[in-house]
């Protein structure tokens, strides 16, 4: 979408134009869901936080000042909500996840329940994907957030550092360390 078209879309969304907000859902919901799913490790939690993210969008879009950083603004809302949830859960102590299927990854990612057979190349890809998912879950929260914001929100590291309130060098060093850990977990040799 052209920049001017996008600006128009945001202006309409600010006026709470239903069609414009619907378009923002189409444009952003899949990526935000992906981020939230990986951050929380649960589809159920991701769905809930996705709703909360867009409710916030409807209520507070006036506060967003257009400077070409709408993605950063919206993904920051989602990441903050995920962080708040994690904090609350920590305070309540360890809990049993209701959808352990996601957390244990007993199904190959992308497979619908009941579908068990895949061509071998796809199976390999699914397996390494699973390995990567599991390794990501072992990262500490901030490292995981840095990697996932880069991947899903496509934010430059500078903006990720701003979002998390850390220096750029720290964000890069953390990302580097996290990726090294992931490569190790997947048996990929260092570059």
């Amino acid at each position: 979408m052209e920049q001017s078209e996008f600006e128009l879309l945001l202006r309409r969304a600010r006026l709470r134009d239903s069609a414009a907000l619907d378009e923002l859902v189409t444009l952003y919901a899949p990526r935000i869901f992906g981020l939230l799913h990986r951050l929380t490790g649960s589809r159920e939690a991701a769905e809930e936080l996705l709703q909360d993210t867009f409710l916030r969008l409807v209520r507070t879009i006036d506060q967003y000042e257009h400077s070409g950083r709408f993605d950063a603004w919206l993904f920051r809302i989602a990441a903050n909500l995920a962080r708040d949830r994690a904090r609350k859960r920590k305070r309540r102590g360890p809990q049993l996840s209701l959808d352990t299927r996601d957390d244990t990854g007993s199904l190959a990612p992308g497979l619908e329940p009941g579908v068990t057979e895949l061509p071998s190349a796809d199976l390999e890809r699914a397996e390494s994907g699973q390995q990567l998912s599991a390794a990501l879950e072992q990262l500490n929260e901030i490292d995981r957030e840095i990697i996932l914001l880069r991947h899903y929100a496509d934010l430059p590291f500078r903006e990720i550092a701003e979002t998390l309130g850390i220096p750029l060098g720290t964000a890069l060093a953390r990302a580097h360390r996290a990726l090294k850990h992931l490569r190790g977990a997947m048996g990929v040799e260092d570059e």
Partner: protein
Amino acid sequence: MWNELDKLEQAVEREMKLISQLPESRPSMTTMERLRRTVRNETVHYRTQQRTLSGLRNWGGIAAAVALAIGLTFGTTTSRDVADASPEQVLADWATAWDESHDRLTNVFDETWSLADGTSDLDDAGEIDELFESWDTALDQFDSL
């Protein structure tokens, strides 16, 4: 220093290729449908709230003007404080009270709009009635000045 950071950033960007192996995780059709419905409902709710607020502000302004006119034209008082005060002082006091009242009313509407669950505590018609009643009482008090 910046050169070092640039180099590190380029290296990390290259390493990020690994993450492309991450399986896609997409919301289901049902989730998307529910999300669209939620956003639509919230939009309608938001617009209704804004209309109510703006209507209330207009109504408040008109009521204040009418009450002021009535008070100034027919107002008599038995209160010693008011009787002793100059007309300018009475009017100034009333204007201050009016501003406070207006602020409180606006706050009630703003604050009762719950960001947490997308509902307004004023959804209960009883509470709205109470609010209007107290508003009327305030105007009656003005009339009795």
